[in-house]
Every structure is written in C-alpha cells, then in structure tokens.
C-alpha cells in the first residue's frame, strides 16, 4: 500500500515539479513515510491523495511553463501526424497556407528538437544509468518507419516518368502508398508523444524517441508532398536534398538526445 502510494506520488511529483525539486520533495516524503508506517487508507487520510499533495507543493508559474513547452513539442509532432484524422488535412492545409513560402516540415522539426533539447538538458554532472528499457526498440521502430518513407521517395525519384505517372501506372499499390505513409506516421507519432511524457516522468533520454518520431513525421509529410507534386517543371529528385537534410538533422538531434 505504501509502495503504491509512493509510486503515484513519484509520478505526480515528476509531472508537476521541476526535476530537482521533485527529487528533493520525494526524498522528504520517503522520510515521512518511513518514519511512521501506515496503511494505504491512513496515508490518504493523513497526507491526502498523491496528486493533491504534489499540487500543493507545485509552483503554478513553473508548471505552466512546462505545460507550454509540452504543448509546443506535442504540436510540432501531432500537427502533421494528425493528417489522416477527420479534419486533420484541413488543419495541415490551413497551417501551410500561412507558411507556404517556408519549409514547414523543417520548421516544425527544428522547433520540436530545439525545445526538447533545451528543456530536457542534463542539469547535473555524473554518469546516468543504463538506457531505459524500451527506448532501443522504439528507436528501431521509428527507423523502420523512416526506411519506408525513404523507399517511397526513392521509388518516386528514380521513375523516369514522374510521380503522377508512376502512381497511375501502379494504381493498385500506389493508391495505398499515401494511406500507408499517413497512418504509419500517425501511429508512430503517438509513440513519440508517449516518449515525451516518459521523458518527464521517468528518464529524460526518452526524448530521443520523441526526436526520431518528429523526424519520421516530417519525412512522411515531405514524401507525400513529393508524391502529390503537380508541377510539370519539377522533378521528385529536386526534393531529395531537402529530405536528406530533414533526416540528417533529425538523426543528429536524436544522437544528442541520447547523451
């Protein structure tokens, strides 16, 4: 019972408080819980619910700052990834309309990476423990998603007749390529969002999964732009350097995120 209470308290503290303050508060609460053994019901009666207890200690200004950072990071990931959902394309199109001269995927990737690298930077010296279990498999999953996106880009780029002709020539498969990319991007972005929450609650190195998910989402949207490019004077190969830039930036950000 005490263990359950402390587990809930830990999660609440890590969400509501800055990391250093959460550590201090949890250490003190551990002393309080150890000083006088109590059952679960007595704990809740004397200390209140775990979330309420941590809310009392939290500072609204700092908490709102975290919520704002979280909203920015989540928006950078979900804005493009939500395209397959009802209204998702309209939202993406609306957003692109105002920024049509700018590389939107690159902007979102840079913003998300920048905020996550700054927010989850290492604040104390010393060696961190082993990488949390689950980070490596999820990174592998995101890399697989990026490989799919790059495969589509490569196929579109090497076709001599251009992407629209390629799609028409392979109508059966091509009709599903866009859907596959969209849904893959959406589902993998959910793991990125989950990893962002874990970066706050558990280990900051979960941000690496978020970074790679962000990269994969940006790449998917860039790949779709290539597939649906109606320009007669352009070539899909023109977009490859841009996609390569997204990939390199994202992989670099992921590498830094693991440190």
């Amino acid at each position, binding site marked *: 019972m005490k263990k359950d209470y402390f587990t809930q308290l830990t999660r609440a503290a890590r969400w509501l408080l800055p990391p250093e303050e959460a550590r201090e*508060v949890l*250490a*003190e*609460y551990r*002393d*309080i819980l150890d*000083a*006088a053994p109590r059952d679960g019901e007595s704990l809740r009666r*004397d*200390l*209140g619910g775990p979330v*309420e*207890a941590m809310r*009392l*200690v939290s500072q609204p200004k700092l908490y709102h700052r975290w919520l704002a950072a979280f909203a920015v990071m989540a928006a950078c990931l979900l804005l493009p990834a939500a395209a397959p959902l009802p209204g998702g394309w309209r939202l993406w199109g609306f957003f692109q309309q105002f920024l049509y001269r700018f590389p939107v995927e690159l902007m979102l990737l840079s913003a998300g990476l920048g905020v996550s690298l700054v927010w989850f930077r290492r604040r104390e010296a010393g060696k961190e423990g082993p990488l949390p279990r689950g980070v490596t498999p999820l990174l592998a999953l995101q890399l697989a998603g990026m490989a799919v996106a790059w495969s589509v880009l490569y196929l579109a780029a090497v076709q001599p007749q251009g992407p629209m002709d390629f799609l028409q020539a392979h109508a059966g498969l091509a009709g599903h390529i866009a859907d596959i990319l969209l849904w893959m991007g959406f589902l993998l972005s959910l793991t990125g969002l989950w990893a962002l929450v874990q970066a706050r609650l558990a280990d900051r190195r979960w941000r690496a999964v978020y970074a790679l998910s962000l990269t994969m989402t940006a790449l998917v949207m860039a790949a779709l732009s290539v597939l649906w490019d109606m320009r007669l004077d352009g070539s899909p190969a023109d977009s490859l350097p841009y996609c390569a830039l997204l990939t390199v930036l994202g992989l670099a950000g992921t590498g830094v995120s693991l440190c």
Partner: protein
Amino acid sequence: MLKKDLLELCLLQVLSRGDQYGYELLRQLHDGFPDTQESAVYALLRGLCRDGFTEQYQGAVSGGPARKYYRLTPAGAAKHAQLLEAWRSLKATLEALGVK
C-alpha cells in the same frame, strides 16, 4: 489572520525553539490541527524554505541515516516576529469584543 498565516506562525514558533527534523515538525502541527493534512503543512514548510525564512541541512542521527533538518534564518525570525505581532493584535481585538 488566515489559517495559512496561523500555521506558518506555528511552524516558525516551533523552529524558534530549536532545529527540527521534517517529520517531527509535521507531526507536531498535525497533532495541533488534526483537520489539516500533513501534505498541506509540508507545502507551507517548503514555501517558507523557498522564501528564505527557513533553511534545510543534512543532520546525522547516531546509529541512523542522515536526516533533513530545518532551522530558522534571520529573515525567518523577522517573519516570526511579524506574525506574532499580527496574532497578538487579533487576540486583543477578539478579547475586546468579548470573545474568550
């Protein structure tokens, strides 16, 4: 004088008598104010520390693990005096109104 001020006065009063271990502080106040949860008292204690009225230090207990102790700072002593004055004023007002 709000209940929050009253609790802060009590915390500072206890600390003015000597440094205290965190849990002991909570227990004393919870015994005096049983309807107030220990987490609320802890939040006030933490607030006092954050505002510089108290400070923490790691103290050792013989034969046991190191514990976190609280002590009053000079700013805390001034705050204590201010709250005590407010309490005495409130008490005088209540007595003048016949509240005993």
